[in-house]
């Protein structure tokens, strides 16, 4: 009884496995598709393994890596990618929003205008699925690099505290200090430039 039952079952299992491996032997083990950048800027990916290296440098170029490791090249189209990967194209988060907050001269107090902007920042972040706020503090070039790293982080943290007080989830707000690395107005070192003392806020 057991034997007669087990045999066809095992045969079916064998056939299913053979079919499966036949299928998977034909399909490439890995497929890489280069998409155009939103900005239109050129980009590339490099696909490599023990068998070789291939560069994809044109949008919709495809690298197909077989189970044995050989890397073949192909091309696809925007339509074919949409059909093959509807979720990957459809499920993109909306573009981040950016705000700039200014401080009262010589302090880490926000200007009245910037305080009003906080409401908009928080509303924007709350409207997004899994919304996050990243606050990046910047300084001018007066003072040392290290001192400006600390100062810019303090400014960002002060803004973060204001946002937590207004009810936004602390674990989804990051305060970052970029020091004097990214001035909006280029100056020589040790030059006082109030426009560079700011916090940039990214809502994503």
């Amino acid at each position, binding site marked *: 009884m057991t034997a007669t039952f087990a045999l066809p*079952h095992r045969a*079916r*299992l064998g056939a*299913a*496995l053979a079919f*499966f*491996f036949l299928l*998977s032997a034909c*399909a490439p*083990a*890995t*497929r*890489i*598709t*280069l*998409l155009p*950048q*939103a900005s239109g*800027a050129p*980009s*590339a*990916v*490099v*696909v*490599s*393994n023990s068998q070789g290296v291939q560069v*994809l440098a044109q949008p919709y170029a495809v*690298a197909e*890596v*077989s*189970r044995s*490791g050989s890397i073949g090249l192909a091309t696809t189209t925007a339509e074919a*990618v949409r059909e*093959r*990967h509807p*979720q*990957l*194209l459809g*499920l*993109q*988060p909306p573009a981040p929003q950016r705000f700039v907050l200014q401080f009262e001269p010589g302090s880490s107090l926000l200007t009245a205008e910037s305080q009003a902007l906080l409401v908009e920042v928080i509303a924007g972040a709350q409207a*997004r*699925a*899994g*919304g*996050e706020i990243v606050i*990046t503090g910047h300084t001018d070039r007066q003072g040392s690099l290290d001192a400006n*790293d600390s100062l810019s*982080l303090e400014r960002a*943290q002060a803004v*973060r505290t204001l946002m937590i007080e207004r009810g936004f*989830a602390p*674990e*989804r707000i*990051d*305060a*970052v*200090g*970029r*020091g004097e690395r990214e001035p909006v107005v280029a100056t020589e070192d040790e030059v006082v430039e109030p426009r560079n003392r700011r916090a940039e806020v990214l809502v994503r």
Partner: protein
Amino acid sequence: MKPSLSRARCLGAAWLLTCAASGALAQTVTDVATPATPTAAPTTAPSANTARIGTFKQVQGDAWIGAGTARRAAQPGAGVAVVDRLSTGPQGAATLTLKDGTVLTMGPGTVMDLSQFQFDATTQQGNFLLDLLRGSVRVVTGLLAKVNPELFKVQTPTSVVGVRGTDFIVETQDAR
């Protein structure tokens, strides 16, 4: 036993076998390629949530954080940590953003590990290694790939993908 049920079970067995094999292979590849030297320590600022390296955004259908029985459902806003295994169900899909602004979108039936991630927000130095074990992932790179392109990698059991600033899709195994 009804033929349909039997077939489903056979396919299920084959699927598990393949997963086990690819998992083992991925492990081997990871071991070989692991010493991507971290160039910067993660930021120690108290206001940075250092354990949290990313946040789930849109989630469609089933998506999980963690492996095996310890896995939990991923909701929008849920945090992920380095070494976390992320996965989606056969009808699932999900998008997450990492600290440096990299956007990862997982297609259906995907299993991937956030094997390495370091990002110093002040200097923008760090590294990233994603191991795609099964399924598909779209990667829109952020600051890490811009500043440290040679330390930003996506691995599959058969290959390593490096970037030169970009948006691309990687699929592996039975992606469809």
